């Protein structure tokens, strides 16, 4: 009996020791909650793969401050209720940083949980309002719509001299958010919205929508759909012989759209915050590494996941310690340069709301390739 007791005591001591070790000098725990199934599966899977790639790279080089990274992945099923459960589970495990989710609704549900737990959250959502709710621990990985849409509106009004624009958008939080911001921005510049066309996620037939664009007599069309639907509408536009300029965002001119739409994608233009086709050597290298590991070309969500992990690295190395409480304060107002931290790919500055400022691109699809027409510098420069 006494032997048993001693064994138990020894085991308990060992367990306590391991726990203490994990907290001080062990691995750094990151928790990712993303849309790995459901309608957001493409977004979440790219994001997850980007994270895994960055973690593997960092660990190969010895980790952050000599400590290896350890990342857990949880599936939100693209459902805010499940996302909340998974984020709660992740926070119960006391991670250093929470990564994700990507869907704006899921971000809204979880941001306050992360805030209460004082865990920094680096997410993929792009809806304008996310960073306006006063969450001090929430950070983006890409432009919010409030920073990308003014650039698109300016291009439509100043470069194209469009007087009226047809706006085609997908009716989910992503599309609706973009539509609301661009409509306001166009109105500011006295550009008329000639047609306001809402479409469904996963919609297959765009004949009626394209006919509406045609009937509106607009000078240009702004198309803001998911990648698959973008390809479908581009094909339909070609079929109906519409020749007006087609302007969009990352989701209109991405590689996936070009692959799916083929020739119909030629001529499409867009503002792109993060693109794997950017003429930046570091991004080209990232793309090659990603393609080698996963056998496909990532979209911008792959880049976002990758960058999220490198933001963690840059901030932690800047602090010189793994300090969850000081993380958010350090990142607010921080500029991370690609020269110091090559993994960040392009210089990036975080403001006090967790929004970012980074170089952007205006691209056009020519002969099945994304060609950068104009580099839009960082606003702060």
């Amino acid at each position, binding site marked *: 009996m006494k032997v048993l007791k001693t064994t138990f005591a020894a085991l308990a001591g060992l367990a306590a020791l391991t726990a203490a070790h994990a907290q001080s000098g062990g691995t750094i725990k990151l928790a990712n909650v993303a849309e790995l*199934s459901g309608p957001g599966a493409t977004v979440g899977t790219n994001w997850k793969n980007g994270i895994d790639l960055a973690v593997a790279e960092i660990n190969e080089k010895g980790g952050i401050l000599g400590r290896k990274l350890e990342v857990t992945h949880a599936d939100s099923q693209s459902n805010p209720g499940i996302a909340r*459960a998974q984020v709660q589970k992740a926070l119960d495990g006391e991670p250093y940083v929470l990564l994700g989710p990507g869907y704006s609704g899921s971000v809204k549900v979880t941001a306050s949980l992360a805030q209460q737990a004082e865990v920094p959250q680096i997410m993929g959502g792009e809806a304008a309002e996310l960073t306006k709710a006063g969450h001090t621990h929430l950070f983006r990985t890409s432009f919010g719509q409030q920073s990308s849409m003014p650039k698109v509106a300016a291009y439509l009004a100043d470069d194209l001299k469009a007087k009226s624009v047809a706006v085609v958008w997908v009716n989910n939080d992503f599309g609706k958010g973009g539509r609301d911001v661009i409509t306001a921005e166009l109105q500011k510049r006295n550009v008329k919205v000639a047609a306001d066309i809402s479409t469904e996620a996963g919609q297959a037939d765009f004949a009626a929508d394209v006919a509406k664009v045609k009937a509106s007599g607009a000078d240009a069309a702004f198309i803001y759909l998911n990648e698959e639907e973008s390809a479908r509408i581009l094909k339909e536009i070609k079929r109906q012989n519409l020749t007006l300029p087609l302007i969009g965002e990352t989701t209109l001119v991405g590689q996936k759209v070009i692959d799916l739409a083929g020739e119909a994608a030629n001529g499409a233009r867009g503002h792109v915050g993060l693109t794997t086709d950017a003429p930046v050597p570091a991004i080209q290298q990232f793309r090659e590494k990603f393609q080698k590991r996963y056998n496909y070309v990532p979209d911008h969500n792959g880049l976002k996941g990758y960058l999220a992990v490198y933001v963690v690295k840059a901030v932690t190395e800047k602090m010189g310690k793994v300090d969850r409480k000081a993380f958010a304060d350090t990142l607010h107002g921080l500029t991370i340069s690609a020269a110091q931290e090559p993994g960040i790919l392009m210089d990036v500055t975080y403001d006090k709301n967790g929004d970012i400022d980074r170089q952007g691109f205006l691209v056009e699809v020519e002969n099945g390739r994304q060609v950068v027409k104009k580099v839009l510098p960082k606003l702060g420069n």
Partner: protein
Amino acid sequence: MTRSLAAWLAGIAGAAALVLLPLALNRYGIYILSLWAVMTIAAIGLNLTLGYAGQISLAQGAFVGIGAYAVAILTTSGFPFVVGLAAALAVSFAVGWLLGYPALRVQHHYLAFVTLAFSTLAYLVFRNEEWLTKGIYGIVGVPRPSVLGIATAKPLPFYYLCLGALAVVSFAVWWLVRSPWGRAFVALRENPVRALSLGVDTRRYTLMAFAIGSALGGVAGAFYAPLVEFVDPTPFTLALSLNLLMMVIVGGAGFFLGPFLGALIAVLLPEWLRFMEGWYLIAYAVFVMVLLVISPTGILGILDRHLTARRTRAASQARAAAKPVLNSEAA
């Protein structure tokens, strides 16, 4: 006597476990248990419509949505939770009653299609009527209520609130299915023509089955909104209706405890299987399919078959024992 005593003991043990278990759980575990309680309420409603009254509905998810929006809209505009709950109950009861009318004319899979159309319609209303529902952006910050002066903002008190609601609903439905109404529902399912000939007003009971079942969907929604503290249209698509239908069928349609078990499997099993990472939903789907192949009547169907077989055996043995034997045979 002993059987009912065993059932009571099992019931008390189950209730005690539900009260005590969360004390040992972290916030995530409590959240999942609360979700289970909420989904069970919705599934109990569907079990009433489908399992007892035999009216197939693919719109239960839409009623959860109606309830959730009723509470979200009212509580975020300053009304107390009770008002929201009453509105959720009333609106989903009324809409459920109206949805019952097609059920008077069409049956089985045709009825499924009608309710499916309603489910899609409800989603479009949630998404497009921005003045009311804030559209795709959803309603943020649905508050958790105070009950008798006790704040339920923390996970544990809110779980007990959900559990309390489940207890009230369970008791009400337990009473209902044993009342003449419950008998009328079953008569409706088994043989509507015969029920009519026996003087059961099938028209009224069909509408009632829909309305009460839907109202319970609304009640579930009323607790779902403050549980997640956010409401947007995406959780209330057809997928939720199908999920609730699965809970009822997997648990055992027409069994009182069916929805409890069904929701247990639909809510908890995917969570337990998460260690399989990318495979967890596949494993879950395979489990459900295998289960339904083995027992098309759900988990309680297995138990029911087993118990029936045992009773039959016992009865046969009793008959055999009671058979008069000749003295010579006995020797």
